[in-house]
């Protein structure tokens, strides 16, 4: 079983911007490790001769002409679920 260390879990949590308590770290460690085991199982599948696939629709060249289309929904409405606004800006926790 591929066991992830608590440090590795901590780093993944940081990248995902999720805060985990010490107890949650332990739980996440065993859960994520079991997910990795499942990935191992999949990786053992024989894929010789199978083409690498990241698209399943078979579509190509889906594009649009370079034309401006004003959004029919008012910006105010688009941002209605924003917790905090100031002078038209979205207000967030201080970064930098």
């Amino acid at each position, binding site marked *: 079983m591929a066991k992830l260390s608590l440090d590795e879990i901590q780093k993944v949590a940081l990248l995902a911007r999720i805060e985990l308590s010490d107890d949650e770290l332990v739980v996440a460690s065993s859960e994520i490790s079991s997910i990795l085991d499942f990935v191992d199982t999949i990786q053992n599948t024989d894929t010789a001769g199978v083409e690498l696939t990241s698209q399943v629709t078979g579509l190509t060249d889906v594009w649009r002409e370079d034309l*401006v289309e004003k959004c029919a929904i008012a910006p105010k409405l688009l941002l209605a679920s924003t917790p905090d606004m100031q002078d038209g*800006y979205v207000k967030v926790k201080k970064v930098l």
Partner: protein
Amino acid sequence: MSQYKPTIGIEIHAQLATNSKMFCGCNNDSRDALPNTNICPVCLALPGTLPVINKGAIDMAIKLAKGFNAEVARTTSFDRKNYFYPDSPKGYQITQMDQPIIKNGYVEILVGGEFKKIGIHHAHLEEDAGKLTHPDGADYSLVDFNRAGTPLTEIVSEPDIKSTEQAKRYLQEVYNIVTSLGVCNGDMEHGNFKFDLNVSISDSSTLGTRTELKNLNSFRNAERALNYEIARQIAVLESGGVIEQETRGWNDTKAVTFSQRSKEQANDYRYFPEPDLPPITLSQSYIDQVQSQITVLPIDVRKDLVNLNLNADEQDVLLAQPATIAIFKDAESALKKPELIKKAVNWLVGDYQSILATNKKPHLTGERLAELIELVESGVISSKIAKSIFADIVAGAKPSDIVAQKGLKQVSDDSELENIIKKIILDNPKPVDDYRSGNARVLGFFVGEVMKQTKGQANPSKVNQLMIKLLKE
């Protein structure tokens, strides 16, 4: 002391001058827009939305490939770069990792009178993030998503650049290419053209550890930051230290580079193929069709200008202005003779630039500039008169019309000029005596008088010639 040589690689981010954003129809020009007004469910990443590729951005990349002497990938696709930051609504950036649209090119730069090729590893398309501002002293930041989804091209050079001077020339040349192809507005104050510089130094053939100078937005700062960083690295090595691979910023006020602890490493971005965007396939005939719209490349103009013995500054003035290049090319084909073409260049880098500073809507054409030069060349008007009517021509007047209208034809007729000169000699006995007793400098006074009386319309070489003849009588 060892001889350390720098090795520099550059990543440039140029904003594409499309009408709409990369993956939605929002207006791509938000210079005069209020914050968060050019937004829609797609660029805000509201649930259930899907991006659609802007064909205009693809076409611009195809043009750029020609400017970079590069291949256009026949199949190109997009990837996700995952990171969380308040300026990124989706929590990832759509970019190109595996199959960038432009590959294996080069840019020619002119250094020390010779052309040198700087390799372009690749250039890819991606989207910009929103804009974050940090009000002074506030415990919050503000986000404007108008820029979120603006198309960018990231141009990645090979580490072929060996000095600060070469780096500067390379940046200038790429800038000329993207602006002259109409692919980027080149407004550096608005961050249209930004770059990261990778620098290492070494006294052997093994490359040293590199640092990355992030987010520079002026040529001058690039030069200062590079000079500083190269000197800093030398000082570290000379004192027995080691260079740490790190990201560094440039502090303009203090004129130093400083360490920026970066939170994420490349593999932390967990790139994977963008499932929402099918790949783009480009046929050779389509690529040819788009590239055939390009009439002239800056490097060809530069080579022309080098042949006309223009210095680098004069070349850059022209090359930074695609519209002026177009005027130059038209004047060049009308004038044909190198000495006259050189005159056209002199107008364009001289008087024309001063007029451009105030006249934002010039109407000068290559044809009219050529006509003006021909009028002087054939002696119809003096170069002084040409200078005096140039502003009118830039404002839209036809040279021959304005000469006729204002009665500015040069006086070259001998008898007419002789009468004027004879009168001046009579009116000025003292200077005449001076001249006859050997003071040749008073000749300038006489010529000036003739010019005054003819309102600058006398042919100067003719005046000189007649003046000397008549003074001797």
